[in-house]
């Protein structure tokens, strides 16, 4: 699992590459925990190369959801593979999180 940060203006984009399981969740959690993240207006998660997400991986997003909302930072997922989207959907996160098809939609969100 590789996490790449691509800041651009008031938007921070994270590229997730690989499987987000219990061990890689720690890496992502450390990235999302950085205080400077709250200075961005929007955080985009590019899930194009995200092939699998475990409950620990979901837990990372869930645990940061409230914090980002309180700081008025938008969290948007895009380019999500169907298999991964299913996991979000089953857990009901699709109604809670902003998941869009393309990067353009994510930028506009």
């Amino acid at each position, binding site marked *: 699992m590789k996490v790449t940060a691509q800041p651009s203006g008031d938007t921070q984009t994270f590229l997730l590459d690989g499987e987000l399981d*219990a061990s890689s969740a720690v890496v992502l*959690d450390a990235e999302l925990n950085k205080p400077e993240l709250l200075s961005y207006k929007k955080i985009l998660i590019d899930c194009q190369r995200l092939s699998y997400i475990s*409950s*620990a991986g*979901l*837990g*990372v997003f*869930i*645990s940061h*959801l*409230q914090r980002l909302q309180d700081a008025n930072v938008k969290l948007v997922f895009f380019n999500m593979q169907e298999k991964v989207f299913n996991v979000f959907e*089953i*857990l*009901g*996160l699709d*109604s*809670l999180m902003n998941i869009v098809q393309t990067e353009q939609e994510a930028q506009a969100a």
Partner: protein
Amino acid sequence: MPKFSRSTWLLVLAALFWVALLLGTLGQGNAGIGPGVNWAHWLALAAQGGFAACVFIFARIQTGPLRGHNFLGTLRQLFWRALALTAGLLVVEGIAWLEPNTHTNRAVDYTIALALFIGLLSQTLYTWRALVSFRGGARLRREWLVFELLLGALLLFQLTTWVIPPPLRLVVYAAIGIFGIYLCGHQRWVAYLSTSQKTQAILLQLGILGFLVLFLLYLRQVQADPTLAAPAAQQSFLLLASFFAVVYAVAGLLVSLFNLPVADVYEQRRTEFMSLQQLSQVIQRGKTPQEIYQNLLNSIVQTLQADAAWLDPHFAEADGEEVTPITYQLSADAAGQLRDRLANPAAGPAHELVDNDLERSQLLQGLGLTGYGSLALLPLHNGGPHNFGTLVLLKMETESFEPDDLSVLHTFITQAALSLENLQLVREAQVSQRTQDELRIAALVQERLIPKQLPTDNWFEISTYAQAAKEVGGDFYDFLHLPGQKLAVLIGDVSGKGVTAAFHTAQMKGIFHALMQPNPLAKSDRQRFPDPHRFMVQANEALTHCLERSSFITAAFYLIDYQAGGFSFARAGHCHTLYYHSIKEEVSYFHTEGLGLGIIRNDNYGKHVKTQFWDYNPGDVMVIYTDGIVEARNAAGDEYGENRLREMLGECFYQSAEGINAYIRNDVQQFSLGQPLHDDQTLLVVKFKASQPQQ
């Protein structure tokens, strides 16, 4: 100008003195030359004294302490030198026999012979010194120094014309002689000889003794010549030195020949043995690591008579307690400095260091640890993977750590390391046993939480299957019969694994049973028990304060009213329910919305979960499961998936609940054959039957 060493200067000086001695001796015979006999006599005295001093100091510098157990080599070296010197004497005597017997010739011969004799004496004396001081302490070294000083004082006395009164002289000579005899008692080296070595040593000593006697006989013969013989005072130095040389050789010979016991050698062996025995006893009693370290240090210090020692233990105590370093005759500061100086990361932790001449190597320079001659550093290990610390020993004398001292040390260390290793293994086993026990208890507790007695009724069949990936799991399910022919079914999955997850499953079970208590204030039967939506909202609220922020729980709750032939249910992020519709003969999933528990921790949760209703028909089958089933992987890494599960139910729906359950779980096991269980698996099958009259 070339730079000469000290020894070279001494030899040059000795040669000059020899020339002066020759001139003096020549002068003694020819009273007519020069101012008179007194001049020549004094010159001969001074020159002989100077020559002897130079040659002895030269020998003192040349002969170092004994290295290892090279007694025979040392003796052999002395033998060849003595042989060469004696051969020189014989050549001189041969020439003297051939040439005309003039005073000049005699004087030259005599001075050469005297020089050879002094040379032999000096070599013998300092070889004996090496043997005497073998395994001797600082006290013996001081005694030897006194002996040397006494002999030197005698040499100085030769220069004075004052003649010591005979009775006093006798006392002085006797005292020095007895002192010499006392020193001759130090024959420890003989005990270290093997039988064959002993024979060689005896022969070599006999030879050396023979050469000495030859020289003495010659000197006794020339003493008859009044023009050559020096006064008694002049000979006393040579006399005592040769006395000592001869007595030591004879004593050594006797000790070797009759195998006389040398008490302190046996004493030392006994101490080694006793200490080792003591150490093993301590170890057998299974004391603490600190006690083993302390005993190791005590035993070694006692056996090797170390002057200072320091032991830096390395032992991980289970309860985090530290084993503290132990020092002997060394301050904690000094030990710390020593550690920094000796730390050699390049050599690795298991390196051994022996320095038998600290004055030369300057290893401890600038540390304030003065006066030490030898140092030994040994890692505490027995060849195994563990290093239990470092031992540093210091002794005042140089050449203190010989191979057999080190072998004694190794024996001690191996013994101690072995017991420390045992101790560590025992502790590790205890810790691991405790963890195992606790896990087993946790598994046992969880096992008890799983309903053993499945609800039975004429209206339905239930079959269950649950398999945890580890000792304890995060899946849970439960049933509860409610009054009025109702059945509550709960299934769920706590995110994460292990003990934490297992703890939350117990919590969910508690919440389930608490919420399913009949409400006494309810106005109607319907309100007596919470509907699925309310159940989820209340469970979410109950979990808000006890679930870690990154954890969540998925659950599905079913309230079956088999009197009415229908059920209501709610899904909180859990896997979709698989359903066989017997009238439509169709297998499908209930696709409903619902958010997992613990994700939103405020009043808004109610908006994200819904109650659904369904009327069932006899023959309908409901398959409830956790993601461990659909996410089971095969060798290629593919997931089992919802589609395959649906197909399976399509193949076996007509069987009993247990038959359907077995059919599906066999297929899952076939699919992931040879793969480790990644996640807990739970599979519940409910089959509704045609209504039958109550019995």
